[in-house]
């Protein structure tokens, strides 16, 4: 990093650290990531271990109670969070890859290429994207799962997860492409780019050395805002039964399980309240960090210096 205390990156970092909401979001996320990654290994309880004591309320032996099969909800919530975070991170990564490439090429080539590429983005914006994700997942289920089950049946959950991450990422890149393109358009006319061009810097190097570092800010900001969106999508699909399948768990399937146990006779609130509460905290933290980064990189109201 640049050590000059007044570099834009430094100033942004200082503004970010002054934002309590965002900093506590980071702390919470690090904590939850550490617990959900390390927790299942450290804890002796197997999240898929069934027992003879279903629907035990939260207590000393089961911190969040047990579910219909007597499985420990706490360890299930941990592995579920891990899957949700994984899908969110990788899905957002895929969307950044597509979006940045698309925006760079579109903004850089300009002219007719740019017009067509952006027109396509407009068109895709107007499509019900979730519907397309469902369609892709169904095709994966009918075509690939049968093929896989003859060869490596054990790998099906992993592939299913990968299919979901890729298909979620491939519908979430539109805004990123627009933002990157706008940034490239404004950078293109800057003296340092013209200077680099005039001394004959090859295009690839120009992209990597001169454009990308100047795009990093907006890309990071929008990446952190895409992660919660993808987490939300994943949980939504899993909630409806189209995403992660049992016995694997994600926050979405856990919330769905909790919701299916709602009945007027016996209220087993813990099955819903714990995964739902964690989901809410997770989304609040992810969005808080994203908004914090946004206002750190784009100070507008004069809140930061």
């Amino acid at each position: 990093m640049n050590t000059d205390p007044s570099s834009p990156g430094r100033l942004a970092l200082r503004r970010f650290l002054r934002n309590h909401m965002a900093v506590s979001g980071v702390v919470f996320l690090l904590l939850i990531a550490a617990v959900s990654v390390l927790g299942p290994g450290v804890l002796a309880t197997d999240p898929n271990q069934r027992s003879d004591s279903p629907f035990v309320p939260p207590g000393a032996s089961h911190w969040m109670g047990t579910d219909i099969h007597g499985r420990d909800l706490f360890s299930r919530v941990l592995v579920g969070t891990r899957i949700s975070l994984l899908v969110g991170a990788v899905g957002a990564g895929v969307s950044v890859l597509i979006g940045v490439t698309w925006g760079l090429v579109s903004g850089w080539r300009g002219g007719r290429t740019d017009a067509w590429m952006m027109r396509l983005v407009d068109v895709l914006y107007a499509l019900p994207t979730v519907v397309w994700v469902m369609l892709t997942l169904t095709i994966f289920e009918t075509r690939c799962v049968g093929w896989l089950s003859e060869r490596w049946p054990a790998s099906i959950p992993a592939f299913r997860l990968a299919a979901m991450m890729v298909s979620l990422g491939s519908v979430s890149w539109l805004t990123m492409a627009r933002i990157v393109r706008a940034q490239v358009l404004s950078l293109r006319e800057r003296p340092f780019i013209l200077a680099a061009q005039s001394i004959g810097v090859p295009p690839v190097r120009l992209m990597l050395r001169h454009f990308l570092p100047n795009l990093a800010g907006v890309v990071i900001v929008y990446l952190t805002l895409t992660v919660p969106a993808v987490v939300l999508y994943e949980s939504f699909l899993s909630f409806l039964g189209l995403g992660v399948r049992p016995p694997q768990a994600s926050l979405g399937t856990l919330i769905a399980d909790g919701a299916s146990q709602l009945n007027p006779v016996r209220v087993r609130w813990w099955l819903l309240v714990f995964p739902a509460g964690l989901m809410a905290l997770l989304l609040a933290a992810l969005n808080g960090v994203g908004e914090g980064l946004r206002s750190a990189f784009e100070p507008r109201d004069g809140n930061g210096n």
Partner: protein
Amino acid sequence: MARLALIPVLLWMVATLSFFLLRAVPGGPFDRERAPASREAEAALKARYHWDEPLWRQYERYLGNVIRGDLGPSLKYRDHSVNDLLGQTVPVSLSLGAMAFGVAIGLGIPLGALAALKRGGWADYAAAGLTLVGVCVPVFVLGPLLVLVFGLWLGWFPVALWGPWQNAVLPTLTLGLYFAARVARWMREGMLEVLRSPHVQTARAKGLSETAVILRHVVPVALVPVISYTGPMLADLLTGSFVVENVFQIPGTGAFFINSFFSRDYTMMMGMVLFYSVLLQVLNLMSDLLLRWVDPRIRS
């Protein structure tokens, strides 16, 4: 308008893509758990749905039917066509969507406006709280939670099915609150932006009453960003309706759509994809037209 001309092309692309994606998949709806008794029966079934023809011929037939407005027979509900099922379910979903939209607008716009007029007042806090709920409590969490609290613990409203108005309260709130939060936020930001602009200063300087300034010179301009966001919002409203119909067991289009995935009802899926694409296009177009009507800067 170039957009208008693009719509048929877009719909053709949607129809073609969904047709080939689904038909290209081996393992059709006829050779799974619902396998017919005999080879003859299977052949008869395939002939009935024209699945024995070459793919290209089927595609021609499908496109022709779609252009005539016929989405074909449902593969699961053998006695119904996709049009039938849409006809039965769309009114339910549309009324749910319209009510939720009403909540979003009716609650969001006044709340956002009040929040901007009195920063730090109760409306500002209410808007901030609503935004927080909107951001971190997704529809599939809010729905079950409302059921738990108002349906089961307090017992105020029924928790499932579609009937008298009491049935509509919880689903409408579930779907509407989230969008009310977003509308309130845009409205607040829009108002703050406009309140700073010179034309408002002019209006005040020429001695207009504060009410007149707000109603004539601030609110209409602040509505512009809100309207331009309603297009994307409507797409999310659609997504949300899948969940709400699922949670509250409402016999709407979304519930049938989700079911068609589990029963591999291909014609139903294709029909629904097309239907949702058309719906979204129409709604987007309407919000564009509204925007042109409200904002004279776009017209010129």
